[in-house]
């Protein structure tokens, strides 16, 4: 008997893949265009490949040589979900390069915008997750709660999706917060907190959903670090990393870094739910202690700068922008978005699950393929 066991242990496992099921770029579970090829054996996913590049528009390329303000507004068009994060980071690169001081009030309002964006992005994630789970009712409830955030964003920025609040040296005058707006934000936060807490209780106590999401799409801590996962995806595996703790904009605020240990879909969803509550906490602090003063510092002068880099924490993880200024025009723009580093984690999380859970395993990493599609070239054989 022992002899037999030894032999079977030493025989290398030959992976035979039965069939490939390609899905996309137009598919009901993935609203964004991407191609995922699932290699299945008896409906269990053995390997997965996500092809991005469907959405490639060459934003860095068309940004080359634009005046810096125009380039900043163009970064907003990289992504419609985290548009504020892109313009904020791009503006921060310019501010860092030109040495511009930003008034404290403007910093606070920027943080409020970023946290509102985190709220709507995470709620969209939860709603999409429920849609993929097949739970239409929860999905609709979340979209209904999210509508409050969209209204707040529209009130502050003037548009429901791309608000364009930060400019070099501060924020746009239209985003100035008066007492009435602050009051509305406070009311909105109370409403969302109540509804999200309610939702989380319902969600956690629903045994059908729990059995669908517990132990599915597991990403271990080691794998997540090896595959360079970032943001909430990494935090859900138990790694306590949040760039907000290092950002000077977040220094005045107290908040917790949320982590979960399991790394499955359940912890991914819970991390987002708890981060919504943390974001509400930050917004409340910002509204309460909003300092008086100017909102824009217009005393900066354009000059040529060396390559400048900036990292910030956005709803999906770590966002990187860099460029240099040459006669007021941006050159050599590089953008690295969080989803591109999460793709490896997505592919890995698919493996070993049933094919219906595979799309869930992709969605759990909060993919934003619009952000992701940077300089990638596909050559047909």
């Amino acid at each position: 008997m022992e002899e037999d066991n030894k032999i079977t242990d030493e025989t290398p496992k030959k992976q035979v893949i039965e069939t490939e099921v390609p899905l996309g770029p137009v598919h009901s579970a993935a609203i964004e265009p991407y191609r995922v090829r699932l290699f299945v054996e008896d409906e269990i996913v053995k390997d997965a490949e996500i092809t991005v590049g469907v959405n490639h528009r060459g934003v860095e390329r068309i940004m080359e040589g634009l005046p810096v303000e125009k380039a900043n507004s163009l970064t907003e068009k990289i992504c419609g979900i985290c548009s504020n994060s892109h313009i904020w980071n791009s503006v921060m690169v310019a501010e860092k390069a030109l040495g511009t001081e930003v008034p404290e009030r403007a910093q606070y309002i920027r943080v409020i915008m970023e946290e509102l964006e985190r709220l709507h992005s995470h709620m969209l994630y939860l709603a999409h997750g429920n849609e993929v789970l097949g739970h239409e009712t929860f999905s609709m409830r979340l979209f209904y709660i999210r509508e409050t955030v969209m209204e707040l964003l529209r009130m502050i920025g003037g548009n429901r999706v791309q608000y364009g609040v930060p400019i070099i040296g501060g924020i746009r005058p239209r985003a100035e917060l008066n007492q009435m707006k602050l009051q509305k934000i406070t009311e909105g936060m109370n409403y969302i907190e109540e509804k999200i807490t309610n939702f989380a209780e319902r969600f956690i106590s629903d045994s059908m959903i729990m059995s669908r999401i517990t132990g599915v799409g597991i990403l271990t801590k080691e794998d997540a670090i090896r595959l360079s996962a970032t943001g909430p995806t990494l935090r859900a595996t138990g790694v306590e990393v949040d760039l907000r703790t290092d950002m000077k904009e977040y220094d005045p605020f107290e908040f917790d870094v949320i982590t979960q240990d399991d790394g499955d879909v359940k912890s991914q969803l819970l991390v987002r739910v708890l981060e919504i509550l943390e974001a509400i906490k930050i917004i409340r602090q910002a509204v309460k202690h909003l300092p008086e003063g100017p909102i824009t510092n217009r005393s900066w002068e354009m000059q040529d700068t060396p390559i400048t880099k900036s990292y910030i924490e956005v709803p999906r993880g770590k966002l990187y922008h860099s460029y240099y200024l040459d006669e007021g025009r941006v050159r050599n723009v590089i953008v690295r978005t969080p989803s591109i580093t999460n793709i490896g984690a997505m592919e890995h999380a698919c493996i070993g699950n049933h094919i219906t859970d595979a799309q869930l395993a992709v969605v759990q990493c909060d993919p934003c393929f619009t952000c992701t599609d940077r300089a990638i070239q596909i050559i047909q054989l």
Partner: protein
Amino acid sequence: MSLKSYSRARAVHVMLVYTGGCNGCDIEIVNCVLSPKYDIEQYKIFLTWNPREADVLVVTGPVTRHNKEPLKAIYEAIPEPKAVIAAGACALMGGVYKNINGDIPSEEICGPVDEVIPVDAKVPGCAVRPEDVLAGAVAALPLLLDAE
């Protein structure tokens, strides 16, 4: 109103194809389908993901290179009568990606949508507002009702 027009007005199946762009229009359209606040079903419009079932194709985005052929394939799979709604600035005229006039133009944009497939109704906006999407879907209805 004949039974044909009446039934067509009472059940419109919409398919959404997203061809690049920034995701903003897309989320807003999904919002007006899935959010109880807008609730597209009360206007007798239903979301489908199957071109064989669809009557109206809503296209967003500037049609990137890898999306051109899939978009054509899906358009051809829809049985007549059909209508196409282009939603958002990118679908209408290529958006910022085509018209920003930087030093290097983007080679990836094959759009706007009406260069790839015929467009019947246009919904402007960056990003489109859910109300406008509903209005656009209603604007495309007469085309369907009067078709053979």
